[in-house]
């Protein structure tokens, strides 16, 4: 049977189902990252020096080197957010070619982000700054790692919507547009989290 309000808006709430669903999901994500940030605040205020000094000394100098990478990644993610929203606009304009171009750019940006991340990680691990080194490193790897997993998840979804999932455009174009909006909300949220991770992990030490 057909579930109502998949495409059309319900009158009294003004929403379609997955719009409400994704916002609830994002609410839970806010609380998830809230738990992580709460740990950051508690451990940071509890530490005598920040970042703490461990076996290999303090990460602070290495961190200074990574600021350019991280800044680059910030720009990349912001760019991907813009192209994401443009992909949705393209669908609204019924321009499938443009949609594919914009969404493709988003996916490429996400991949670049991960590659940069990979170099950042391997550099740190190479120098002995593994998660167990001190609480800063533990937070760094856990927070960025979890964020990275969100990026990976996003890539999977977006790649599906770019590739095989597009067939829905022919049968139910409005529903497909909604899907892109919902996927976009998720993607912007991932960007938003990064906007906070960037200063607290890279800059303000």
């Amino acid at each position, binding site marked *: 049977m057909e579930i109502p309000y998949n495409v059309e808006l319900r009158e009294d709430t003004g929403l379609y189902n997955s719009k*409400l669903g994704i916002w609830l999901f994002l609410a839970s994500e806010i609380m998830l990252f809230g*738990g992580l940030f709460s*740990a950051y605040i*508690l451990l940071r205020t509890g530490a005598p020096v920040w970042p703490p000094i461990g076996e290999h000394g303090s990460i602070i100098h290495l961190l200074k080197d990574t600021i350019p990478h991280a800044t680059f990644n910030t720009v990349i993610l912001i760019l991907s957010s813009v192209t994401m929203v443009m992909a949705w606009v393209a669908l609204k304009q019924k321009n499938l070619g443009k949609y594919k171009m914009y969404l493709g750019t988003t996916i490429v940006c996400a991949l670049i982000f991960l590659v940069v991340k990979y170099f950042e990680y391997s550099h740190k691990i190479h120098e002995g700054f593994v998660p*167990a080194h001190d*609480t800063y490193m533990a937070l760094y790897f856990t927070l960025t790692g979890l964020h990275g997993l969100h990026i990976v998840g996003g890539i999977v979804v977006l790649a599906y919507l770019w590739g095989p999932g597009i067939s829905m455009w022919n049968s139910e174009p409005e529903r497909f547009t909604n899907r892109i909006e919902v996927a976009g909300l998720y993607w912007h949220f991932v960007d938003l989290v990064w906007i906070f991770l960037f200063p607290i992990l890279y800059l303000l030490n």
Partner: protein
Amino acid sequence: MSDSHHEESFWRKYIFSTDHKVIGIQYGITALLFLFLGFSLMMVMRWQLAYPDTAVPIVGSLVKWLADLNGFASDGNLPADLYNVFGAMHGTIMIFLGVVPIIVGAFGNYLVPLQIGAPDMAFPKLNMASYWVYFVGGVVMLVSFFLPGGAANSGWTAYPPLSDIATTGQTYWLIGMVFLITSSLLGSMNIIVTIVQLRAEGMTWMRLPFFVWSQLVTSFLLVLAFPPLEAAGIFQLMDRVFGTSFFLPSGLVIGGEILKVSGGGSPLLWQHLFWFLAHPEVYVLILPGMGILAEVIANNTRKPIWGYKSLVYSATFLGFMSFLVWAHHMFLTGMGQGMSVFFQTTTMIISVPSVIILTCFMLSLWGGSIRFTTPMLFALGWMPMFGIGGLTGLPLGLSTPDIHLHDTYYVIGHFHYVVAPGTIFAIFAGIYYWFPKMTGKMLNETLGKVHFYFSFIFMNGLFWPMLIQGLGGVSRRLSDGGASYAHAQEFLHWNVVMSYSAWLLAVAQIPFIYNLIKTLLADKSPNPDPNPWNATTVEWTDTTSPPLGHGNFEKTPVVHRGPYEYSVPGESTDFTPQTQN
């Protein structure tokens, strides 16, 4: 989505079904089995508590086999190591694998769409995923029993540093929890969207059955409170797997060896994140139970629930406040005056909506024409029992009596009164009440009454002495029931009383299980009455199920009135269905 005429394969229909009714029943069966397991663990533990270090009768060889497998020494008795495993897993299984799946997963899934007149859940595929993720989480937990060192053994609260340095079972516990949390998140998002978006025409907010309200509030609790525990679980996994020290301060010496970690962490961080979930979680256990009660009471008193609006507002307020009280579990962690004032105050405030809800239920009885059916008996039994459980929460909620009572059997008694005769009675009431809806067959009333009276008696025999022991200062989680401590000597005989009550309580479940199986196997009654209780809510006007029709309603229902229009003056019958024009 699929057109409903072609035959679905067995797998699609019963295993990987996206029909909320099938998923609800899957949840129900799995969760009952887990309840049974959690109960069985406790039966063995109760032997150890009553007769420490003697061989467990009947299942002694099984216990020895498991102990050998885990590498514990046992002569058929329950060694302390295994006791701790059983204790932690009893709590975990009962709460996360038993009660929540049954009360949200099974009842919520099965009934919410029916009660609001929706064709299914808003996201059927997600619904299926949520069951299977739960299933995987359960399997992970079960597997952990067979690891060397056994399953998790640091209590269901898993406080670090103990849990950080515990055996591998704890890692499985954490992984299992991540699955269970994910499952709950998927399920509860689905329930919220369903309630908000898929209400039938005319089903306004104030016409929702209270059960649906309770599910709505519960789902919000799950969506917003579970993620911080997920974060905490990830931290603890990092600690255990990657050697970080989120929860480990510097300078720990364990068994004479300096613990080689960087340190700098905080054990209290875990407690904050854990109780941020776990306090709302206890209202997740009780709110849907209250929802079930409202349905049963209205139906069996043949009159509207008294104070429907107060119920709704109280439940919502309760849900909101439940995020503000978590640290009443941490009164003894050395909090200062400010924190203590804040959390005592919020705890006292949160008891008020519970009092209001209970008052509404009790006032609903006044002027009714009470039918003593099995569901109603469980509902009536629920009230004083939840009353005792809730009332014993008050001394715990004030930080000064809690100095004496914290982590004693008083706490155990308090929460068992709310979860066992509280939640479990509500679940039983729900099972007896909606069984005809799910299967088209009525459970036997006589067996049901036997089940109720004996459960009622033995539950009190089981949990009341806990309060006595607790006031005497006996600590919880003692694998010899206190035999080693001087101050517990005067209370040891209660252990025997409690254990016999527990085993007799187990015996009292036999009529129930027999009743379930016998009724299920019995031939279908030729012409099942679609509304055997003469109830008003929408699920009973649905004629396509039972047991499992395609879709929910032949004709999309339209709602014209509130949920509990019983004995309306001037009507010919004593019930006026919501769909009646």
